[in-house]
């Protein structure tokens, strides 16, 4: 009677230890998963204002040298 009782107690302790590991796992996700789970539509701050980005020179007049209300005829 004493031996089976001891075995049951050991098995119970092992089961509790195993359950404890499983509960802690979600709190520290592996770093490799972060990139996969990131929102694909997230933008860097400067890309949120694309019109403010400097543009490569085209050789034509910049907007600030076009008179008010002027639209170049095409």
């Amino acid at each position, binding site marked *: 009677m004493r031996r089976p009782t001891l075995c049951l107690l050991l098995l119970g302790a092992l089961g509790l230890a195993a359950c404890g590991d499983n509960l802690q796992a979600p709190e520290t996700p592996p770093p490799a998963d972060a990139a996969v789970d990131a929102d694909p539509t997230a933008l860097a701050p400067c890309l949120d204002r694309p019109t403010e980005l400097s543009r490569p020179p085209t050789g*034509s*007049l910049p907007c600030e*040298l076009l008179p008010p209300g*002027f639209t*170049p005829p*095409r």
Partner: protein
Amino acid sequence: MRSSFSSLLLAGLVCGPALILFTGTAEAHVSLASGPAIAAKSQKITFGVGHGCEGSDTVRIRVDIPASVTSVRPLFSDFGKPTVIKNGTTVTAVEWTKSDADVLAADDAYYELTIRARVPDAAFTQIQLNVTQTCRSAAGVETTVLWDQPAGSTTGNPAPVLIVTPAHTMGWNKVTVGRAVAAADVPTYLGDAQIVWRGAAAYSSNANTMAQIGNTPGVSVLSGDLASGDEIWIKY
């Protein structure tokens, strides 16, 4: 690369002496160091005296004031004390005289003399300002040079000419041209602007901006005379 450098070097060797010659000629004149004036505005007008007379120092400068230039007040100068010459209440001339103690033994100095005056509401015109320069040699001999000839004259000495630009402020200005301006005179009156537009045609004294004008679809280089009544946009 070596070829480009050689070309630049050659251009420098050819153009350098010409540039020095041009600068020397320009400095010989009594000039307007303050540049173009703005129509219908009181402003400082500065005369630059680049040289004396035949090696002698300048001891007196007289500027005749045309009737169209009003509210004239001279500034004191380290050259000498100014005197205002009037006909009634109208200032007809301003004269600066150097004290005897300050006269230099040789023609070594550059002088600037300034008046504050109101320029008439006459954009796209030029005002001739006759100047009389008096010099004194180390031996005490005085000589007088008149700068009173119109631009392009083949005799005498050219008078300083005040260019009158349209009334304007920094930024965009919409201007109705009050009198015809020949195409050749557009740089004279509007050369200090960033860009000038008439319709879809533009002009700038800056060579890079002119290249951009030529590269902009639908935009042409401003050419031909400006007619009285033309509406133009000018950015300063």
